[in-house]
């Protein structure tokens, strides 16, 4: 019941901020159109095939990443606008509070991913199998959980939004650009390849690509193991950081 109410709160806040929903679709659409059609011909000439088939899962992962981190970072807003205090003095374990709101944030990010997925269909993306497309929703949720928990862990340690720019430029952007969302990871320079392999989003992008385009580089099995492990570890760290909040 507690998990449900905290989950519901995140969902309601999301559904009420229509401008946020629409606003956050601008970027993925721009990326799909500009990169998809811009690089498409070169990609095909280089023997890569249909670039949109390659790019779409990466852009879906991108929108989940951004929405999820943002949902986690919302803890700072709650600190500043006070609602966090209301939950922290309630006779509920802080782990429950953290998990409830993380599930809510992750659901929101997954919905955002689904909307982008539907948009890619309109632009011309074709998943290879319907069954696997449905399975990709699970992968989307795992990516969403991972980064909502990460956002929560970071936000638990910050006082205000001043650190947000720092996180965005030195954490979120590198996670996205070095995940192989935009380029194939099979013939990269060694240094970059190492970074790509450390980046948890790489496995999310790869899993989506495996499920939607049947072109996983690391293999869907490994992707899922890595994703689930990251979700568990980061959620534990997030819950621990959250439980230490003093206001």
């Amino acid at each position: 019941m507690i998990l449900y109410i905290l989950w519901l709160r995140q969902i309601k806040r999301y559904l009420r901020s229509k401008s946020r929903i629409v606003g956050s679709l601008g970027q993925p659409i721009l990326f799909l159109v500009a990169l998809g059609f811009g690089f498409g011909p070169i990609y095909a000439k280089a023997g890569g095939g249909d670039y949109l088939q390659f790019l779409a899962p990466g852009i879906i992962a991108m929108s989940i990443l951004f929405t999820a981190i943002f949902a986690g970072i919302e803890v700072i807003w709650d600190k500043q606008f006070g609602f966090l205090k209301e939950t922290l003095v309630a006779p509920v374990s802080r782990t429950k509070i953290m998990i409830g709101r993380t599930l809510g944030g992750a659901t929101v990010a997954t919905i955002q991913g689904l909307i982008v997925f539907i948009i890619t269909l309109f632009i011309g993306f074709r998943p290879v199998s319907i069954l696997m497309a449905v399975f990709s929703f699970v992968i989307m949720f795992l990516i969403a959980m991972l980064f909502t928990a990460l956002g929560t862990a970071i936000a638990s340690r910050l006082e205000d939004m001043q650190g947000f720019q720092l996180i965005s430029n030195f954490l979120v952007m590198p996670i996205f650009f070095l995940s192989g969302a935009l380029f194939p990871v099979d013939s990269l320079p060694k240094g970059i390849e190492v970074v790509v392999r450390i980046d948890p989003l790489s496995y999310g992008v790869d899993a989506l690509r495996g499920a939607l385009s049947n072109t996983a580089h690391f293999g869907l099995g490994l992707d899922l193991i890595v994703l689930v492990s990251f979700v568990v570890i980061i959620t534990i760290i997030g819950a621990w950081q959250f439980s230490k909040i003093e206001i």
Partner: protein
Amino acid sequence: MTEIFSPTIIEVKNLVKRFKKVEAVKDISFSVAKGESFAFLGPNGAGKTTTIRMLTTLLDPTSGSVILNGFNVDKNPSDTRRSFGIVFQDPSLDTELTAYENMYIHAVLYAIPKDIYTKRIEELMTMVELWDRRDDLVKNFSGGMKRRLEIARGLLHHPKVLFLDEPTLGLDPQTRNLMWNYIKDLREKEGLTVFFTTHYMEEADRNADRIAIIDHGVIVAQGKSEDLKKQTNTETLEDAFLALTGKDIRETTGSDGGNMMKMWHGRR
């Protein structure tokens, strides 16, 4: 009041809170009896809110101990949290939700049975005259309406101890009266203990059995209102307060609304 014979519900011993440089609370001790109404007065920045934050598990003390309703606040935060309710000094509503949703979340967080909270939410929201506005988003409320909603919410789960940190700031006398009458009723019916801070001396005089005055992190006097007046040879509680805490204005910020985070961390 027969506080000597009543069991103690809040026991604070040698409580200290040190932030990086400032010692906000310097070794204070006091106790509050079950059913008592206890006012905690002091100038801005005296350490009132810091003390309340320690008593309500939001802040770990540097040293000293707090026993609330038989539970060690530091070691057993969960049972402590079940025992008290609080109306914060600064806003703690979710402004993106409706007034009713804010009440409802509180009811669920405190595990109030459905038949009780349905009745109580209506009763309390009617009392603060927000029942007609229950489905409006809180962000469209005025400051006074938000305050009233916070008070209604703080009373929702009928706690053993109710903390009120300057609850009536910015409230009109009508609402202030209604609030104190509701609390009086709860004290009679359920033996509620009230711990409150205020800058309105006549409010403390009227609603507190006992008063403690804190200044610069130290309790400078405590007792009944008459005791404080006698002790300082003054006619009113306000004069007693001024005699005990001096007349110079404190530099720390006031306590109304807005973004409190930075102030909190600078506050003593």
